[in-house]
């Protein structure tokens, strides 16, 4: 067998994809198109139409897939935006980078992503010239507080040696319960990175394709549920500030452990429709037992044709019994060697 390139990163199928970049620099005062993404807060921007009950209409099917990493590469320093030329050069370099995967290694044990259209470059991408989704001087997640490190270590230690005892020892995603990128905050995921916003009187609903979960956000002014209640997606309440939907989420469990956080996580998201095809999605997260300070990010969302296809996960999850069966086979093999 010859070496093969890791097809999942460099398929020629991306010939079908168009990457759109804005032409103007971020500080420009242009008010049309997705340059409005970078307009200063308070600057006059496009006004979205209203729903029948008079609130901004954010509805649609969107992708938040992006070429921008969550954290800024360290060598970029404090720069928050590339120029168009720099971004193009980076993309070109990425396209020319091939990872060699040796046969007979775990890296080679994977289906071809390109054959199924699951390479990032094979689908629409929301445009951004940002150097990182995280905004600010460092563009990186703050270091974990010592108590958070201790929590993480304890969790790992508790599961050590028991990783394949049963389904409960596997991660929530492998069990098809929830995907890590669902959040909130909602992050892009490698494929099927799509979501749909539907509004009704007093509610905004957001369905994330991965994995077919709906966040139902009341906007009727109610407060959060009692602090003794913990939910995998947290408890979200929303309100409108001008044309922006502000969603406040608390009451997380410690099981999703977003970037090392736990029940202390508090997420504030802001959704603003800035042009007919673009929603500016911003979030700020804080967790006093995890990070010394809050941090924020901005992720553009661009309209796609849709539809969202149902990602029914648990129903088709052959992987779970297969993984456990594989683990039992390995144990048997090891036992027979003794």
């Amino acid at each position: 067998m010859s070496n093969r390139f890791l097809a999942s990163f460099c398929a020629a199928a991306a010939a079908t994809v168009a990457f759109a970049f804005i032409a103007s620099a971020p500080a420009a005062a242009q008010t049309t198109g997705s340059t409005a993404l970078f307009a200063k807060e308070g600057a006059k921007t496009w006004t979205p139409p209203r729903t029948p009950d008079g609130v901004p209409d954010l509805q649609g099917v969107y992708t938040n897939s992006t070429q921008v990493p969550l954290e800024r590469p360290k060598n970029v320093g404090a720069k928050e935006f590339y120029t168009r030329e720099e971004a193009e050069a980076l993309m070109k370099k990425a396209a020319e980078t091939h990872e060699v995967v040796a046969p007979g290694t775990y890296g080679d044990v994977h289906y071809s992503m390109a054959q199924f259209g699951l390479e990032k470059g094979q689908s629409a991408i929301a445009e951004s010239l940002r150097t990182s989704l995280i905004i600010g001087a460092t563009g990186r997640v703050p270091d974990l507080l010592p108590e958070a490190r201790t929590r993480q270590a304890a969790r790992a230690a508790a599961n050590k040696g028991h990783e394949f005892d049963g389904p409960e020892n596997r991660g929530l995603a492998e069990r098809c319960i929830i995907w890590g990128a669902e959040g909130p905050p909602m992050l892009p995921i490698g494929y099927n990175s799509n979501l749909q916003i539907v509004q009704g009187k007093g509610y905004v609903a957001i369905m994330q394709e991965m994995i077919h979960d709906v966040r139902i956000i009341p906007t009727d002014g109610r407060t959060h549920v009692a602090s003794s209640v913990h939910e995998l997606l947290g408890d979200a309440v929303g309100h409108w500030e001008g044309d922006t939907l502000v969603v406040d989420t608390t009451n997380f469990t410690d099981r999703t452990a977003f970037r090392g956080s736990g029940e202390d996580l508090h997420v504030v998201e802001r959704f603003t429709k800035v042009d007919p095809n673009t929603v500016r999605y911003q979030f700020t997260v804080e967790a006093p037992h995890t990070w010394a300070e809050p941090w924020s990010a901005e992720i553009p969302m661009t309209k796609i044709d849709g539809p969202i296809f149902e990602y029914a996960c648990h129903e088709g999850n052959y992987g779970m019994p297969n993984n456990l069966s594989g683990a039992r086979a390995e144990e048997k093999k090891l036992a027979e060697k003794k």
Partner: protein
Amino acid sequence: MTKLVFALAGACMFLATVPVWAHHSFAAEFDPQKPIKLTGTVTEMEWINPHSWIHIDVKGSDGKVTSWMVEGGSPNALLRRGFTKESLPAGAVIMIEGYQAKDGSNRANGRDITFADGRKLFLGSAGTGAPDEKTGEK
């Protein structure tokens, strides 16, 4: 507003993040020390998530037929491109290169799947056949 659109032939995006398959422990399921090559006739394709599965009948050199199931990717992107559940019909002959299940059962991870004439399954290395996924410029 000026919007520059670049169609980058052969481009791909490399994001230095956790591999997308980190959610799924392929390492637990399939054995990199058990490479397999199969030729078989499709009996059924399950267009399901989290992974599609192609069922094939493989005739051995002794004439005996065994059934295998082969793991593929999420079908959602294919469905958006216009493929349907009828796109891989029963009776199609396909060739699989991949790795066998650790527990020795007739299951494999379909790393490369081709038709008898060498064409890759579905999108292969370039968008073929079905309409492309579009951005919603409305």
